[in-house]
């Protein structure tokens, strides 16, 4: 059961939440984290390709956003702002990996690491939510046209390269990339129509 204040935050848009967070509402930024944590994590995973690195990068993204929330002017969407922070974080991780030197990120908070755990992050309801999300994703993938679905399956399940898919399906390389892009776009729209998270 969510607190009354938390229920009120759910009804606010992202920009309103930022305003509340700037006004030192501790729960407001938590609601922002809850709304975007999975998508930011997914973006980081898309950038880095590894779950552990993606998790760390997402964590750093929210930390950086919290630190700089007062600098948010509202010129872009909150999601875009978070996306850019996440991209920067991931590129930083990549640069560090390329130079093969690990630098510890200074904790400017003075040792007090704030972990923005969204409400009910580890609740038993999470398991149910996860099961339902898997079902939704499976149905969404199944509803894709067969030519788009097979490219997703070959890329994600069989972990084939674009060239391998191109050779297997006897399609041009650009067509394979285009089909996968189209498939992911359609999948995104289907998932947006179906809420994946239980409030």
């Amino acid at each position: 059961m969510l607190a009354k204040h938390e229920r009120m935050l759910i009804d606010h848009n992202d920009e309103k939440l930022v305003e509340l967070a700037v006004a030192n509402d501790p729960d407001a930024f938590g609601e922002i984290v809850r709304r975007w944590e999975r998508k930011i994590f997914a973006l980081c995973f898309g950038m880095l390709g590894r779950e552990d690195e993606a998790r760390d990068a997402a964590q750093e993204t929210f930390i950086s956003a919290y630190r700089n929330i007062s600098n948010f002017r509202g010129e872009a969407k909150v999601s875009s702002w978070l996306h850019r922070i996440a991209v920067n974080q991931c590129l930083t991780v990549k640069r560090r990996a390329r130079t093969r030197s690990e630098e510890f990120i200074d904790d400017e908070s003075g040792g007090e690491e704030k972990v923005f755990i969204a409400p009910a992050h580890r609740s038993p309801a999470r398991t149910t939510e996860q099961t339902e999300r898997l079902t939704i994703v499976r149905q969404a993938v199944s509803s894709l046209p067969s030519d788009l679905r097979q490219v997703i399956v070959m890329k994600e399940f069989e972990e084939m390269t674009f060239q391998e898919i191109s050779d297997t399906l006897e399609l041009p390389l650009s067509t394979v990339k285009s089909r996968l892009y189209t498939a992911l776009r359609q999948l995104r729209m289907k998932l947006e129509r179906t809420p994946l998270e239980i409030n």
Partner: protein
Amino acid sequence: MKDIKFTDCRYSIDIVPYMYGELSSSDRSVFESHLLDCAVCTDEFAEISNARYEVYDWKKLAFDPLPTPAFEIPRDVQHEAAGVSWIDRLRAAFAQGWAIPTVAFASIAIFAGLTGLFLMSSDTDVAGVNKTTVPAAPPVTVDSPLPVIEAGGKSDTAATTVGADDRKPAERKAATAAHRTEPKRVIRTSRPGQPRIIDTRATRIETPSVPRLNDFDEDEDTSLRLAQLFEDIETSD
């Protein structure tokens, strides 16, 4: 090839390859720099990454924990698909293990051997009964030459006359050899003076050649032949 624009930005075509790490190092650097400056590509990248991660998570949670089942194609299906002959199957059976195929093969061989022996023994008995060929006539020694007298009673006195042979021994030998292949036997008939020579070989259809006294070798015992000749003539009267 025409580049496909997924968004208004021309770099959007690199979103998917970059996400899967399949951009070249140079193109990757360019795209990363572009991401820092282009909100459209950044937002689009985030959306595409989100959709991609949902599929990834679904696979990780629903498929990866599943044990890989053990699939087995029946052997007859394999052979049928490969067009394998029975010989190849037999070889394959022996290639896999020696115990059972060896025992089976040995059993078959023993049975075949016993069957063959049985059949061979049966054939031997049957051959003695069912033989239709006429046994070869016992050879007649050249030491007891017999006069050839034509059927019908005509006697070739010239054939019975022992006359001098002016031919050389080698020539006489060659001529004699041509007549020696046909063993003949005299059978005394009821008609005196008219012995007939019957060729006992059933396959012979030609008129037996008439041996002449001159055909025999000089070193043969002609005296004995003459004696026997006179004896026959005397007894036939």
